[in-house]
């Protein structure tokens, strides 16, 4: 084997290492988290799905992620369309602003959102957290949808207008359909940005825990294999969804290039 192949294999192993450890641990029947497990079973999956506190946190996270993704996708897509219609100087500035949440450290954003929420008395609110997550997901929507939008011939919308369609109709018939797969992909990415997010949620949520906050709090007091079961479950869910999103994204780009 060549040196480069060995390095590549090592790199992949390093990336997959946590998963390789966590998956077997989740099927342990031991009382404490340990590797390798001494006995096997589905005890901890039962513990997760049977515990109302874990379930409440999971559904809270799913709900927040759903709305955050919806807000980020709509705002990001409309933002991209808007950016295409303004002067280049404004475009550069606003693009920077849209991308900023991906560059600024999450702790700083969390602190900023927390201080802002305090002054409005809106801490400990699912709504505040949803919007904060939408802001965090916005850069990804802007980047994914933006890449597809730039491939769309700008004459398409003009053609629709000349054919008799009003501006909204022209957008819906000419511009949106070709980029729709990318928009769906962006929505999936945005969903998981929110679903995985811990730091902002820690700052904002006192009583009602999201799933990552619940995991965090659980880890602080005892280490039991429920976390391994949850992780394994969501590794598979996330992998499937992300693979779908990536597939959609690639297909849009390829299809738009062909035309």
């Amino acid at each position, binding site marked *: 084997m060549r040196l480069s192949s060995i390095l590549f294999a090592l790199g992949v192993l390093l990336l997959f290492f946590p998963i390789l450890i966590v998956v077997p641990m989740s099927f342990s029947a031991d009382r404490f988290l340990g590797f390798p497990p001494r006995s096997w079973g589905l005890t901890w999956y039962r513990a997760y799905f049977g515990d109302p506190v874990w379930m409440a946190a999971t559904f809270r996270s799913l709900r927040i992620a759903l709305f955050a993704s919806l807000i980020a996708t709509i705002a990001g897509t409309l933002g991209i369309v808007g950016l295409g219609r303004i002067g280049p100087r404004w475009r550069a500035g606003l693009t920077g602003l849209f991308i900023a949440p991906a560059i600024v450290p999450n702790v700083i954003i969390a602190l900023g959102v927390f201080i802002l929420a305090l002054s409005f008395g809106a801490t400990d609110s699912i709504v505040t957290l949803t919007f904060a997550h939408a802001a965090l997901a916005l850069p990804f929507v802007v980047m994914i949808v933006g890449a597809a939008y730039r491939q769309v*011939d700008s*004459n*398409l919308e*003009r*053609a*629709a*207008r*000349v*054919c*008799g*369609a*009003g*501006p909204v*109709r*022209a957008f819906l*018939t*000419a511009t949106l*359909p*070709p980029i729709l797969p990318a928009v769906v992909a962006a929505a999936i990415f945005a969903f998981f940005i929110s679903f995985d997010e811990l730091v902002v949620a820690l700052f904002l949520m006192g009583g009602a825990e999201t799933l990552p906050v619940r995991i965090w709090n659980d880890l602080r007091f005892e280490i039991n294999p429920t976390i391994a079961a949850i992780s394994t479950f969501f590794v598979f869910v996330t992998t499937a969804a992300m693979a779908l999103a990536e597939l959609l994204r690639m297909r849009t780009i390829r*299809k*738009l290039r*062909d*035309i």
Partner: protein
Amino acid sequence: MPTHNAPLSFQAVTKRYGSTSALESFSLDVAAGEFVTLLGPSGSGKTTALNILAGFTEASEGEVYIGGRPVGALPPERRNVGMVFQNFALFPHMSVFDNVAFPLRMRKVPRREIGAKVGKALETVHLTGLTDRKPGALSGGQRQRVALARAIVASPPVLLMDECLSALDLKLREELRDEIRRIHATLGTTVVFVTHDQSEALSMSDRVAVLNEGRLCQVDRPDSIYDRPASRFVADFIGRTNILPAKAVTDSAKEAWASIRPERLRPEPGPDDIHFEGVVEERAFLGATIEGRLRLGGGQSLRFALPRSASVPCPEVGQTAVLGCPPGDIVMLDE
């Protein structure tokens, strides 16, 4: 499709971007049913003029009229024009049929009439049997035919074409050139055609409007534009020509130029012709003609294109030759 068309008119239309103007006080009247080409190099303002006519760009000053009505305040969807774009601009997710039917659906044409009208339009552009295909599965020529069908299907009185042949290769371009002429003759629609290709402009149009740097240089029939260019720019841009410095007889202080087309020069000029004597600098045999350059005494070089004839041998490189043309073939230009 019923023949109907409308006149259109630009009146002192100016478009400024910041301090630069893309179009400067542009006025042009196009008669109903006329085929007029806006010809110019890139940045000449021809596309700006078309975009203002279509409603994509707002004029800074002046007004555009279609069928006698001012349309400056109307959005593109209410101007009732058809348009063919440079890169086709077909909706990629719609079939050929749906693409062509789109303008009819937007105009709320009853469903039962749509099928017949789409069929008629596709027939007009000689494209049938591909109605279920997506644009991605068509060749460039077929895509442009679909784009043409979509532009004419709702029988708009005015048809706009923006560099619509330049994305095609030479053979297809010539084929579609004839096709567009034929469609224009059949439908009688007013056509405004934008191109940077002078051979397209000369071969297709009733009249050609030459633009440069945002200004209209000359509007005339193709042959008049070629024979009587109004300025140095037009003489140089349309076809090939020799521009020689000259002096105006009326005012010798004023700068002037003489334009002589290479194919107007002939060997063994008569006594009434203007004579040019020089040394043959280069010479190329092109079958029907022999082309080359003559270095004149004043240092200028003169391009010639002589018909090949057995009776009059063409001078060899390095030889002295006398070429000439009737004074009427020389166009005097003062700008």
